[in-house]
């Protein structure tokens, strides 16, 4: 039985894990870098150990140091959170070697999940549909044309030496493909001395829908519904929800079954997430398994009533999952907004520094997971997620309205945040109608609308701003001068007020 957990992470997720530890009566061990000495996870854990300098490589990614602390503190298990070492198969294997119970899948399963080509091959064998295309490098141009005609145009021709959009060509027919193949091969030979190309179906108006999966050491496997995470910027999720507006119980059962199949195919143990792309004709394509607890897990907690961190610990303890698929009921609707420290209008550039004041929203159906407190600081060394604002409602509309109100009540001083962006999204017709896609922001010109909304908001507050400005001027005057008559009375009143 796990009695003491080292949490190899920081920020809100470290706090989230500590919370469940406290509730279960399990001791928690926090680790921290120089930058995090004043962080809440240090203050809330049973014990806290300093592990190095601010830079992640020197602290939260320092495998040897973290293992050393785990052993010194007598922790019998380790929770990796998300990011940092959470999907590092080598680290998982190191934990296994040192007899530290790693709360997550085995190193072997994690390794397989991390290798996208291998994982795709395993899924194809297990009859889990993946994005149509070559299952390996194409041999030559005729091979490419053959595959393309099988999966149907348009297709993407991708160079494995590309990355970040470089070396990707969109083609609409055989001729274009042959031309592009020649050009791509030439380019690649010139630059790298070799060429390696893939063909993949070009998917449009994509939704990102993922299924929470769980599997225990006894072979019991369940899915805990879907999360729709289509609203993104730069391939990073901004808003997640459950249920998805396009998933009914029939689809949930069907794709959930696929997600379970995927977990079994890689012999996955503990909680994980099977990610799918869904296109407008209703087809789902598996893309990958995230071998960790997701940022957006609270969405699933609110609609299932489960404590997923507790479930992770139970599974790591060798226990059976304490319910069957048929026992699970999706209750109401949950939405999460990731409150990031970033400037929406500077291409989402990070915004860091001290946060002198914070007001955290609350109320029926409102949950906030955050490391923020008045006087804290947002560090430029780590990622921009400051808080997760999650609301639950009986219906999507109730959840959305609660989110809208909570966003209004959330005040973070000192850094730019994504809160104004979410207010605009939450009020948009397309969001309300569930018309989501990964290009939502661009497709519906959300940033232009945000600008309009901000202007309107400023105008609506302008009377108050002007009133505050003139009163402030008078106040300063009354403090500087000691003039006779009214001003003295004024000053007295001001000081009394």
């Amino acid at each position, binding site marked *: 039985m796990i009695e003491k957990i080292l949490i190899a992470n920081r920020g809100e997720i470290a706090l989230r894990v500590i919370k469940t530890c406290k509730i279960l009566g399990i001791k928690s061990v926090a680790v921290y870098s120089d930058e995090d000495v004043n962080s809440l996870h240090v203050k809330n854990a049973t014990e806290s150990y300093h592990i190095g300098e601010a830079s992640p490589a020197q602290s939260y990614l320092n495998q040897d140091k973290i293992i050393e602390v785990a052993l010194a503190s007598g922790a019998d298990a380790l929770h990796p959170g998300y990011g940092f070492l959470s999907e590092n198969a080598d680290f998982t294997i190191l934990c296994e070697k040192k007899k530290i119970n790693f709360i997550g899948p085995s190193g072997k399963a994690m390794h397989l999940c991390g290798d996208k080509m291998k994982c795709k091959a395993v899924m194809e064998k297990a009859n889990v549909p993946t994005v149509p295309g070559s299952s390996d490098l194409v041999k030559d141009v005729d091979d490419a044309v053959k595959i393309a005609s099988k999966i149907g145009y348009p297709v993407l021709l991708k160079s494995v030496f590309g990355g970040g959009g470089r070396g990707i060509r969109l083609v609409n027919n055989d001729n274009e493909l042959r031309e592009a193949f020649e050009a791509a091969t030439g380019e690649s030979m010139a630059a790298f001395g070799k060429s390696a190309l893939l063909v993949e179906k070009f998917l449009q108006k994509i939704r990102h829908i993922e299924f929470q999966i769980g599997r225990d050491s006894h072979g019991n496997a369940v899915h805990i519904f879907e999360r729709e995470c289509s609203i993104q910027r730069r391939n990073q999720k901004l808003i997640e929800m459950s249920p998805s507006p396009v998933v009914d119980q029939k689809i949930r059962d069907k794709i959930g079954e696929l997600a379970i199949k995927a977990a079994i195919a890689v012999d996955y143990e503990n909680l994980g997430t099977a990610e799918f792309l869904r296109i407008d004709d209703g087809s789902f394509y598996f893309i990958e398994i995230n071998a960790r607890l997701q940022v957006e897990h609270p969405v699933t907690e609110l609609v299932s009533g489960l404590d997923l961190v507790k479930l992770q610990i139970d599974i790591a303890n060798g226990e059976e999952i304490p319910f069957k698929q048929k026992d699970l009921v999706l209750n109401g609707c949950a939405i999460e907004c990731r409150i990031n420290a970033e400037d929406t209008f*500077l291409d989402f550039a990070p915004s860091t520094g001290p946060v002198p004041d914070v007001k955290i929203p609350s109320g029926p159906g409102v949950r906030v997971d955050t490391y923020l407190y008045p006087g804290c600081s947002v560090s*430029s060394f*780590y990622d921009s997620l400051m808080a997760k604002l999650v609301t639950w409602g009986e219906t999507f509309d109730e959840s959305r309205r609660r989110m809208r109100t909570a966003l209004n009540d959330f005040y973070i*001083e000192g850094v730019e945040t994504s809160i104004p962006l979410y207010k605009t999204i939450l009020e948009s017709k397309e969001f309300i109608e569930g018309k989501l896609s990964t290009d939502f922001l661009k497709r519906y010109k959300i940033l232009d609308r945000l600008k309009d909304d901000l202007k309107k908001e400023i105008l609506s507050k302008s009377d108050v701003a*002007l*009133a505050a*400005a003139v009163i402030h001027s008078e106040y300063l005057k009354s403090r500087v001068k000691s003039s006779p008559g009214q001003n003295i009375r*004024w000053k007295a*009143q001001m000081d009394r007020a």
Partner: protein
Amino acid sequence: MEYKIEDIDKKFDAEVLQNLGNSEFVVKIKGKERNLKILNITSKGIEFILDQSYHFVKYLEDSTAKMRVVVDGVPITLNRHHQLNEIVYKNVGGSGSEGDSQLYLKSQIPGKVVSVNVKEGDKVKKGDVICVLESMKMQVSIKGHKDGTVKKLKLKKGASVAKNDILAEIE
């Protein structure tokens, strides 16, 4: 007093008309008389009830030319309206980017310098990448704000820069 709000092309007037005592005032905002009752005031912020609605305003910055406030959580910049201000204001621009006439290229984000893409003496065009910063796991290209010659570079690979630090002088 006349004010401009953000980059809205209009002037707004506001003044204190009367001190009613007991922390209550009559103010005139955009030509309309309103009642204002102060609950709490310091040099950093004010809480008051305007007519019947409560408001909390923080003062973040207060110079002769402009005042940055946060009204019920909404940041607003007020520009006190003088002839001179108007000129400066137009040049600075409302969108947060420095105007063309500015000498200095400043960083709008904090971060670590990953690469410096120009040398002193280089001729650059507006939009050319001057350097790349890394912050929160992201790489951000900092682009030149105008055409000109790089007079001074205040950048070193691996160094940290804070928000609003001067990165280069471009003339």
